[in-house]
C-alpha cells in the first residue's frame, strides 16, 4: 500500500500542537523539512487550532464540536478548559477551572453549539440566563456565568457536579426501593422549586440528574432546552423522545406538566428497570405513537424477570415477587398518574407527586387513585359538582331496590314476631337513616361523632339480624341489602376501604345463603349487582384494581339462564348503576372508548326504564341519572384522544347533556340539586367548546351557566362552595375570551365585576391558598387585557402608558402569588403560564416603546 502522505507529518504534528503557540513557530523552523512540507505542517496546525472551536464536519453532520478528546478550546472567558465531559444534541460540555483568591473552582461549560443571530437573540439569551441564574437550590446545579465565545457561540458556565447519572447510581449501588424513592423525592423538590420560579426543565432524563459522591442529587441543565430552542433555528427542538411527554412529541406547548410526565418516565425506570414503552427508543415512529396514544403497562406488570432487563441492579434490590407486590397498587398508580396523556390529569405539581410518594412511604392513602380531587381550584370545584350529579344515581338505585325488596319481604309470611321486629329495624335503617337522617347530617360540620354512632348502630342491627336470619329467604335478602346500603354510608363517611369491603362481603355471603334456599330471581340478582358494585368501589379505593375490575365485570354480567326474563325495573336500575359506576371507576385500566360503551349500555337501560310506567318520582330520578350519564359521556369523550373526532363528538354530547338537564329543570324548577347539575353541564359544555375553539358557542354555554347560577344563588344563597364555583366560572370564561381575542374593553369591565366578587369572599378564603390562586389568576387576566387594551386605537397616549404600567404591576404581583401556591397552578393552561412568565418583560418593552416615541 502507498504510504499515507499524512503519516510523515503525524509525529511532528502531534508534538508541535502540544507546545504553547508562542514556541511553535521556532520549533517548526527548527524541523529538518523542505519548504513545502513545512508549509503543509503549518497549515495543518492552524487548521487544528481553528477546528477546536469550529469543526466543519460537526457542523455538517450534527455531531458535537468537541467529540475529539483533547480537541478542546484552551480557554473560554476567564476559564481554563481542562477536559470534555460529553457532547449531545444540545452541544458540548467542557470541564474547566479557574483560580481566584487562591481558591480553585471547577466548572462545567456548556457550548450551546449554535450562533446567536441578531441583537434580539442575544438579549433573549441574556434574559433567560438571568432567570436561570436565580435558581438557587441544593439539588439544582448552579448557573454561574455565561456569555459568548469570540466566535459568537453562546455558552453557560455551571457548577461542576462530579457524579453519575441517577439510574446508574441506583444500579451500581444496588439501591432498594425506599432508597430509590428517597432520591426521587429530592429530584421532585428541585423540579418543584424551578417550577415555582416559572422555569420548566423540558429535558428531564437520567443524564441530566446526577448523584454525587455524597449521594446527593443534582439536576443539570434547567431551562437549557428552552434556551437553545430560542437561540436556534426552530427545527432544533432538542429533547429526548424516550422521556418526552405526549404534548412535546406532538409539538404542543410545553408546560410544567411536561416535566411531571418526564418524572413519571424516570420513576417508572427507577422502579421497574425498564421504559414505560414497548417500542425501542430507536423505533421513533412507533415510540411516538405509543407516547401519544398507548397507556403504559403498570410498572408491576412490566416486571417480567431480572433476565429481561439489562442488568440485575436496574431493579430495586428485592425479591422479584415481593417487588411486584410492592409496586402493585399505590406505586403503580402514582407512576401512571404522572404518565397520563393529558397534562391536566397528571399531578398538578412535582410537590403533589412527591407528597403521594411520601404517603406511600408512610403507609398513608395516596391521592393518585382519585384524579385530581382538590388539586386545583377548578378541578376541585368541578369534581365536587360532578360528585353531586352522579352521587344521586347510586342513591337512586339503592332506594329503588330497597322499596321492592321490602315489599317482597312484607308479602312473605313472617314466621316470628321477633323477625318482624328486626324487619322494622332494618327498614328504619335502610330508609329513615339513609334516606333522611343521614342525608341531613352528612354535610353538617361537627357531626362526625353522631354519624359514627349511626353507623355503629346500623352495623349492630345488621349483625344481629344476620345471626337470626337462619333459613328465612326474605330476611336474608333484606339483611344483605342492609349491608350493601351500609357500605354506601360508610363510603360517604370515609370509613376505610377494608370496612366497606367487609360490609359488601357480608351482603354477598348472605345472598349466597339465600340462593341456596330458593332460586335467584331478577330482583335477587339486582341485589347481587349492588353488593358487587359496593365491593368493587371499596377495592378501587384500596387500589386493588384487578379485583375491582373483576367484580365490576361480575356486577354487569348477565344473570344465570334460570333467572326469568324480562328484567324488572329494579333489575334494570341496578344494572344501569353498575354500568355507570364501572365506567366512572378511576384507576382501572379502561380506554375511553370502553367507558363510552359502558355508558351507552347504561343509557339503553335508562331508555327501557323511561318506557316503563314508573311513578313520577322514580321517573324523575331516572331522567336525572340519564342526563348525568350523558354529561359524563361528554367528559369521557374529550379524553378519547385516539378518536380524531373526539372534540366534535364531545361537544355534541355536551350539548345533548345540557338540553337534557334544562328539560329536567323545566319540570322541576325549584330543585337546587338539578340547578347545580345544570350549571355544571353548561360549564362543561363551554369548556369543551372552548377547547374546540368554537368560541361563539362557548360564549352561549357560559351565558347559560351564568343564568342558571344566578337562579341557584336566588334559591339557595348559602350553597357552601357556590362562591368559589361562581368565580371559577367567570375566570374560565375570561380565559376563554383571552384565547378568543375578545374585546379587551368589555373584558376589563367584566374583570372589575369579578374583582368585586373576589373582594366579597370571606377573609378566611381570601387569605388561603384558594384565595391567593384566584387573585393571581385574575391579576394575570387583568394585566393581559390591560396590555391589549393599551394597544387599541381609541386609547389616548397617557392612558396607554397608565394601562401598561398597571399591567406590569399586576404581572409582578401575580408572579409572586403564583410562587406561593405553585401546586395549584393549572398546568393545562400553558398559555396562561406563558403569558404570566413573559408578562413583565412584554409590559416593560411596551412601556419603553411608548416612552421612546
Amino acid at each position: 500500500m502507498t504510504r499515507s502522505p499524512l503519516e510523515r507529518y503525524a509525529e511532528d504534528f502531534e508534538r508541535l500542537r502540544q507546545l504553547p503557540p508562542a514556541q511553535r513557530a521556532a520549533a517548526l523552523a527548527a524541523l529538518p523539512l523542505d519548504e513545502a512540507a513545512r508549509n503543509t505542517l503549518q497549515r495543518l496546525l492552524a487548521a487544528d487550532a481553528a477546528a477546536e472551536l469550529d469543526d466543519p464536519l460537526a457542523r455538517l453532520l450534527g455531531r458535537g464540536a468537541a467529540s475529539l478528546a483533547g480537541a478542546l478550546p484552551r480557554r473560554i472567558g476567564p476559564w481554563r478548559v481542562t477536559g470534555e465531559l460529553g457532547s449531545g444534541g444540545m452541544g458540548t460540555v467542557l470541564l474547566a477551572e479557574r483560580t481566584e483568591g487562591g481558591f480553585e473552582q471547577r466548572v462545567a461549560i456548556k457550548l450551546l453549539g449554535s450562533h446567536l443571530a441578531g441583537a434580539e437573540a442575544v438579549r433573549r439569551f441574556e434574559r433567560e440566563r438571568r432567570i436561570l441564574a436565580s435558581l438557587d437550590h441544593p439539588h439544582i446545579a448552579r448557573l454561574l456565568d455565561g456569555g459568548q465565545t469570540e466566535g459568537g457561540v453562546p455558552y453557560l458556565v455551571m457548577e461542576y457536579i462530579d457524579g453519575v447519572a441517577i439510574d446508574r447510581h441506583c444500579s451500581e449501588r444496588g439501591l432498594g426501593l425506599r432508597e430509590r424513592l428517597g432520591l426521587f423525592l429530592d429530584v421532585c423538590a428541585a423540579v418543584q422549586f424551578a417550577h415555582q420560579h416559572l422555569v420548566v426543565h423540558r429535558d428531564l432524563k437520567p443524564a441530566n440528574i446526577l448523584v454525587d459522591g455524597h449521594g446527593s442529587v443534582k439536576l443539570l441543565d434547567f431551562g437549557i432546552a428552552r434556551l437553545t430552542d430560542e437561540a436556534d433555528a426552530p427545527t432544533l427542538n432538542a429533547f429526548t423522545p424516550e422521556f418526552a411527554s405526549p404534548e412535546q412529541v406532538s409539538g404542543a406547548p410545553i408546560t410544567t406538566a411536561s416535566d411531571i410526565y418526564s418524572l413519571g418516565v424516570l420513576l417508572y425506570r427507577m422502579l421497574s428497570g425498564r421504559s414505560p414503552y414497548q417500542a425501542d427508543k430507536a423505533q421513533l415512529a412507533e415510540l411516538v405513537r405509543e407516547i401519544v396514544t398507548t397507556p403504559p403497562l403498570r410498572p408491576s406488570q412490566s416486571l417480567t424477570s431480572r433476565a429481561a432487563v439489562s442488568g440485575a441492579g436496574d431493579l430495586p434490590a428485592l425479591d422479584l415477587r415481593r417487588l411486584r407486590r410492592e409496586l402493585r397498587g399505590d406505586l403503580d398508580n402514582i407512576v401512571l398518574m404522572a404518565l397520563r396523556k393529558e397534562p391536566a390529569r397528571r399531578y398538578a405539581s412535582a410537590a403533589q407527586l412527591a407528597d403521594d410518594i411520601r404517603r406511600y412511604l408512610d403507609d398513608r392513602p395516596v391521592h393518585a387513585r382519585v384524579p385530581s380531587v382538590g388539586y386545583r381550584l377548578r378541578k376541585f370545584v368541578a369534581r365536587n359538582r360532578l360528585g353531586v350529579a352522579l352521587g344521586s344515581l347510586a342513591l337512586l338505585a339503592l332506594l329503588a331496590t330497597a322499596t321492592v325488596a321490602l315489599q317482597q319481604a312484607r308479602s312473605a309470611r313472617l314466621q316470628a314476631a321477633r323477625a318482624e321486629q328486626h324487619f322494622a329495624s332494618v327498614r328504619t335503617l335502610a330508609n329513615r337513616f339513609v334516606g333522611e337522617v343521614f342525608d341531613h347530617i352528612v354535610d353538617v360540620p361537627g357531626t362526625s361523632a353522631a354519624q359514627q354512632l349511626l353507623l355503629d348502630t346500623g352495623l349492630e342491627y345488621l349483625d344481629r339480624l344476620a345471626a337470626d336470619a337462619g333459613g328465612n329467604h326474605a330476611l336474608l335478602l333484606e339483611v344483605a341489602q342492609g349491608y350493601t346500603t351500609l357500605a354506601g354510608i360508610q363510603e360517604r363517611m370515609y370509613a376505610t376501604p377494608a370496612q366497606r369491603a367487609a360490609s359488601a362481603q357480608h351482603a354477598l355471603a348472605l345472598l349466597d345463603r339465600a340462593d341456596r334456599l330458593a332460586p335467584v330471581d331478577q330482583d335477587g340478582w339486582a341485589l347481587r349487582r349492588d353488593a358487587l358494585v359496593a365491593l368493587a368501589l371499596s377495592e378501587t379505593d384500596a387500589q386493588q384494581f384487578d379485583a375491582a375490575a373483576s367484580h365490576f365485570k361480575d356486577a354487569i354480567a348477565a344473570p344465570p339462564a334460570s333467572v326469568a326474563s324480562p328484567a324488572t325495573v329494579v333489575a334494570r336500575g341496578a344494572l344501569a348503576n353498575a354500568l355507570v359506576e364501572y365506567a366512572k371507576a378511576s384507576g382501572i385500566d379502561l380506554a375511553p372508548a370502553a367507558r363510552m360503551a359502558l355508558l351507552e349500555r347504561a343509557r339503553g337501560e335508562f331508555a327501557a326504564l323511561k318506557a316503563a310506567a314508573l311513578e313520577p318520582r322514580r321517573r324523575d330520578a331516572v331522567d336525572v341519572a340519564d342526563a348525568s350519564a350523558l354529561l359524563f359521556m361528554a367528559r369521557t369523550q374529550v379524553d378519547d384522544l385516539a378518536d380524531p373526532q373526539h372534540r366534535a363528538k364531545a361537544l355534541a354530547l355536551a350539548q345533548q347533556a345540557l338540553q337534557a338537564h334544562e328539560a329536567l329543570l323545566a319540570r322541576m324548577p325549584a330543585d337546587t340539586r338539578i340547578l347545580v347539575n345544570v350549571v355544571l353541564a353548561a360549564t362543561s359544555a363551554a369548556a369543551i367548546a372552548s377547547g374546540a375553539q368554537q368560541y361563539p358557542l362557548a360564549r352561549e354555554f357560559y351565558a347559560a351557566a351564568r343564568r342558571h347560577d344566578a337562579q341557584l344563588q336566588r334559591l339557595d344563597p348559602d350553597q357552601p362552595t357556590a362562591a368559589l364555583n361562581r368565580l371559577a366560572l367567570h375566570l374560565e370564561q375570561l380565559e376563554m375570551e383571552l384565547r378568543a381575542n375578545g374585546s379587551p374593553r368589555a373584558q376589563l369591565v367584566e374583570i372589575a365585576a369579578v374583582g368585586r366578587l373576589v373582594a366579597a369572599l370571606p377573609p378566611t378564603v381570601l387569605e388561603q391558598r384558594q384565595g391567593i390562586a384566584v387573585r393571581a389568576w385574575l391579576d394575570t387576566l387583568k394585566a393581559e387585557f390591560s396590555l391589549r387594551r393599551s394597544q387599541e386605537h381609541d386609547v389616548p397616549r397617557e392612558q396607554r402608558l397608565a394601562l401598561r404600567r398597571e399591567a406590569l404591576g399586576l404581572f409582578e404581583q401575580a408572579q409572586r402569588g403564583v410562587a406561593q401556591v405553585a401546586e395549584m397552578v393549572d398546568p393545562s393552561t400553558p398559555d396562561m403560564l406563558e403569558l404570566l412568565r413573559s408578562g413583565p418583560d412584554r409590559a416593560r418593552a411596551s412601556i419603553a416603546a411608548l416612552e421612546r416615541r
Partner: protein
Amino acid sequence: MNEPSTDHDITRLLDAWRSGDAQAREALVQRVYANVRAIAAQSLRQMPGATLSATDLAHEALLRLLGSELDWADRRHFFHVAAQATRQVLVDAARKRLTEKRGGDVERVQLDQAAGVSTSDSDAQLLQVDEALRDLAATDVRRARVIELVYFGGLSRLEVAAALDVSEGTVDRDLRLARAWLRTALEA
C-alpha cells in the same frame, strides 16, 4: 419499512462478512443504505420537532435492523457498514439537491432537516468532505475510517479504538490529524 430485509438476512450477511466475504459487506451497505434513507425521511414525518444527526441515523438503523440484543462484535461490524451507508445517504441527497434545479419535494426537505443540513453551501461542503475522505482512504484507510466511524457512525473514541483494534491514543491522534487535514482540504 419497504425494504424486505429481515434480521436474519442482516445477521447472515454480518457472519459472511466476518468470515471474509467482501461481497457480503457491499450487500450489507446496500441494505442499510435503504434503511437510513427511510429513517431520515420518516423520522421527520413522525416527529416534526426532533432532529436526527448523522449518528442518530446510524444508531437507529442498527436498532431497526438488528434490535438491541446484539453482541459487541456484531455491533462493531455493523457500525462500519452503517457509517458508510449514512455517509452515502447524505452525500447522495446533497448531490441530488445540487443537480436538481427545482426544489420543494417532500423528501428533500426531510432529509435536509434530518441531517441538520439546510443550505446548498453545506451540500457542496459535504460533497467536498466526501471527496477528500475518498482521497484520504486511497492512501490512509485507517484515518479515513476513523473519521467515518466518528462522524457518520457516531461511535465514541473507545468504540472506534475497539472497532479498529488500535489504542485510544491512536484514535485521538488519527482523528485530530485527519480532521486538520480535511479542513485544509476544504479550504483549498
